[in-house]
């Protein structure tokens, strides 16, 4: 497998923590980092579980949300139209 090298700057202490984790797992520091990157890439290609479901909301909350959508959008538009007075 072809590999590429790069330089990464870690916050102080994180590299020590990674080394401890690698030792516990009996793998290299490189392996821990690559596995983490792989996991991040996999996660970012999928929406979080339940993201498109409304099960986290009660029926009342959902009704409120949908009924209030236009009002919220209108408030944002109003904010845009307000301008500071011209400088003199």
């Amino acid at each position: 497998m072809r590999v590429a090298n790069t330089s990464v700057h870690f916050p102080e202490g994180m590299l020590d923590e990674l080394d401890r984790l690698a030792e516990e797992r009996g793998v290299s520091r490189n392996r821990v980092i690559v596995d983490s990157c792989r996991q991040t890439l996999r996660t970012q290609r999928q929406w979080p579980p339940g993201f498109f479901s409304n099960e986290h909301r009660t029926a009342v909350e959902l009704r409120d949300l949908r009924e209030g959508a236009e009002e919220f959008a209108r408030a944002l538009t109003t904010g845009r139209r307000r301008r500071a007075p011209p400088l003199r």
Partner: protein
Amino acid sequence: MIVLHTNVVSALMHRLPTALSRLRMSEPVDVVLCSPVAAEIHYGLSRLAAGSRRRTVLADEYARLREAVVWTDWTEAAASEFGRQKALLGARGSAIEDMDIAIGSVALALGARVATYDVRHLERLEGLSIDDWSESPAP
């Protein structure tokens, strides 16, 4: 890659089914929330009564979206694009809201499209690709 306009973020926060269907067509890694949009959303939230159920629920929905997608700050490239676009619009006598120029500039700097429910103003920005979410989502 798509940059969500404020009106799209608002629709998603309100769990509008057509907006959610449209979002589902993209992978989260290709969906961008940018700081000018966040500023407008925080303004909208701040206008709601503190501690109200509505504000709490909407802030929670915003946080869920923010957590799931890619974030980008206002960058130097976007600032440069903003200046260029605003000057072009001014020369044509075709001013639009600064926030729309800012959002469009973030997208142009990233080489992304803007997802919006209102193409009227954004389409005046030179070179910007737009996803019109007011159209029905593809099956």
